[in-house]
């Protein structure tokens, strides 16, 4: 009998294609958006995990501002990262070098100013003042030329990211050309290799212009320390070194812990926490579209039931029981939602391919997500079909036969 209901449902959906399409729209949007968002979240998590394994285990990151490793989601937290710069000073960096068990320290200082080449400004990059161990610490190779050495720390040289080379110089290896920052001329001595996807979580190298710290200081203006990278000695326990650094810096800050010392995984997770929470939040919003989709189905099904009053009367007169009418109409909304879910899955898969091709993001749509979202979609269809179907089943055959519809 269920097969019969299915055939009847297909026949009536075929009978009003445009309307059925509209009915499914809510489910289609719900399924595809939930799947894409969950897929993006999964993708970012995968990228983070990969990145964690790539970054040296002995890396410690010091950031300004107190940052709890995991915080409940709120709009305030989204803002706070930007407003908490400035609590790290050059003194902190120098003192960290003296902490026991620290092998090397690399500051990441944001230099205010805009780089230009050939009178063209490069707005989308960051000028960073740093020191020579940076490529080793981040395991970020230099493709052309070389990173500046400790001896060059006062020389006016620069190492640029891949994107800067492409966008500002518009060539692959502008080694030997010079760029200007605040009227000062810097010679490009190295170009980084394309940074691996996902590493943006720590520092975006691709659009960075790196200057030796000492040389950058001579520019005048301020250098804001946005991060300090520390490499612990290989033989040392990273956690105890991090603890030592914390103690030392608390002394520097007059007893106040207005900075954060993060070990490898913490650093990466804290960076991605906000994104992940945002994804969960958006997925929640997308689930609302399921509810809207369900209401859409219910609405159209109610309209269908009153429009097909006469049909219901005929079917009852020739021997359909109320249960059979109920089954037939529930099946219709089930078929609608299954079709909607299928189209939604197809759209999601297609857009995830598009996202992979056009952006750095790598959404992962697992079979588990497909099954889960489809089940939710179909459950939505059944639930929203019940009331209209019950209305159809309750109809009195005599009055239904008299109806004009």
């Amino acid at each position, binding site marked *: *009998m269920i097969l019969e209901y299915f055939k009847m449902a297909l026949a009536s959906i075929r009978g009003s294609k445009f309307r059925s399409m509209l009915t499914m729209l809510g489910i289609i949007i719900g399924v595809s958006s939930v799947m894409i968002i969950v897929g993006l979240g999964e993708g970012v998590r995968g990228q983070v995990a990969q990145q964690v394994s790539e970054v040296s285990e002995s890396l410690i990151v010091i950031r300004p501002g107190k940052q709890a490793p995991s915080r409940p989601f709120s709009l305030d937290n989204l803002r706070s990262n930007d407003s908490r710069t400035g609590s790290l000073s050059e003194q902190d960096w120098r003192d960290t070098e003296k902490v026991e068990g620290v092998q090397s320290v690399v500051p990441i200082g944001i230099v205010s100013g805009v780089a230009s080449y050939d009178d063209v400004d490069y707005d989308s990059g960051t000028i960073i003042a740093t020191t020579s161990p940076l490529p080793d610490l981040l395991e970020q190779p230099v493709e052309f030329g070389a990173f500046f050495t400790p001896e060059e720390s006062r020389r006016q040289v620069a190492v640029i990211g891949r994107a800067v080379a492409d966008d500002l110089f518009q060539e692959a290896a502008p080694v030997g050309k010079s760029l200007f920052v605040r009227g000062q001329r810097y010679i490009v001595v190295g170009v980084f290799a394309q940074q691996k996807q996902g590493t943006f979580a720590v520092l975006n190298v691709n659009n960075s212009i790196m200057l030796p710290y000492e040389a950058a200081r001579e520019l005048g203006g301020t250098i804001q320390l946005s991060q300090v990278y520390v490499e612990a000695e290989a033989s040392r326990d990273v956690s105890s070194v991090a603890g030592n650094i914390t103690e030392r810096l608390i002394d520097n800050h007059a007893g106040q812990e207005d900075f954060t010392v993060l070990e490898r995984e913490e650093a990466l997770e804290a960076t991605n926490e906000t994104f992940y929470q945002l994804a969960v939040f958006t997925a929640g919003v997308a689930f609302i579209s399921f509810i809207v989709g369900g209401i859409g189905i219910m609405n159209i099904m109610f309209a269908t039931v009153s429009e097909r009053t006469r049909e219901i*009367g005929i*079917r009852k*007169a*020739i*021997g359909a*029981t*109320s249960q059979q009418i109920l089954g037939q109409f529930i099946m219709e909304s089930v078929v609608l939602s299954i079709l909607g879910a299928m189209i939604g899955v197809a759209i999601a898969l297609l857009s995830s391919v598009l996202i992979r091709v056009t952006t750095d993001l790598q959404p992962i749509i697992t079979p588990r997500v497909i099954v889960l979202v489809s089940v939710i979609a179909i459950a939505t269809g059944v639930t929203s079909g019940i009331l209209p179907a019950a209305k159809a089943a309750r109809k009195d055959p*005599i009055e239904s036969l008299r109806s004009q519809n």
Partner: protein
Amino acid sequence: MPLIEIKELSKVYGFGDATTIALDEISLSINRGEFIAIMGPSGSGKTTLMNILGLLDRPTHGEYKLSNQHVERKTKIAQAMIRRDNIGFIFQSFNLLPRLTIIENVALPLAYKGVYQKRRLKAAEVVLDQVGLSDKEYYYPNQLSGGQLQRVAIARALINDPSIIIADEPTGNLDSVSARVVMELLKEVHELGNTVLMVTHNPSLTRYADRIIYMHDGNIVYDESTAVGEVPKRVQKAVEALRTSTDDDKLADVSAMMEEMPEQLSIKPVPKKSKSKSKSKTKVKSTRKKGKKK
């Protein structure tokens, strides 16, 4: 043993002053193989009787035995199943599903019985052949004429080999030629041994029946067996006799009442009414003149 037996069957609609007695303690028994025509003016209760016999409606009081089984108090599901297996309906407006093909329409009662599609369509082929429409199987209802549609409906009514076929004004929407074809077909169906119950307004159609029931105000006035092919004189007389109580007659009664007791009704007596009539006539004339001027 009669196929259908009803005893003191009543159907009452509404409450209090608005109560309408559609059927007033009717008793009737129908034997297998009869062709019964039910006649009567609108509101005489014949449609209500058909609905109850067809198990689409329930009586307020009384008994209804179908094949010696009490069916009047069965659950709706059980009644739907009896409808499906034992009763074939033919409606004035055909009532085919427009989105299904002819053969699917005919096979539909079997679908609700759970018969597989192949067997279902085969059975439908057979009955469609019986009604002479085997070449129209995959047409849709809107591609067929009224007479053909009614033959499809007859095929649908026959597919379950029902105990009784209930036809509600089967020729009401048809021209006289199609009506004749349909009636001849119903006659054949009857001759094959089916029991047919037909409601009609048209006295000439009673010639196909072998028993005529005349209803009035929820009662059976005449119940008479006749030879097939004959319109009984009593029916003709009855039709004529009962026709005299038309709406005009009722109005005449009312005016007679008003003459008798004008005060109680507080409506002014007849003479003034006639004056107003003449006034209205002159008004009509004047409007006509205006129309001409325009």
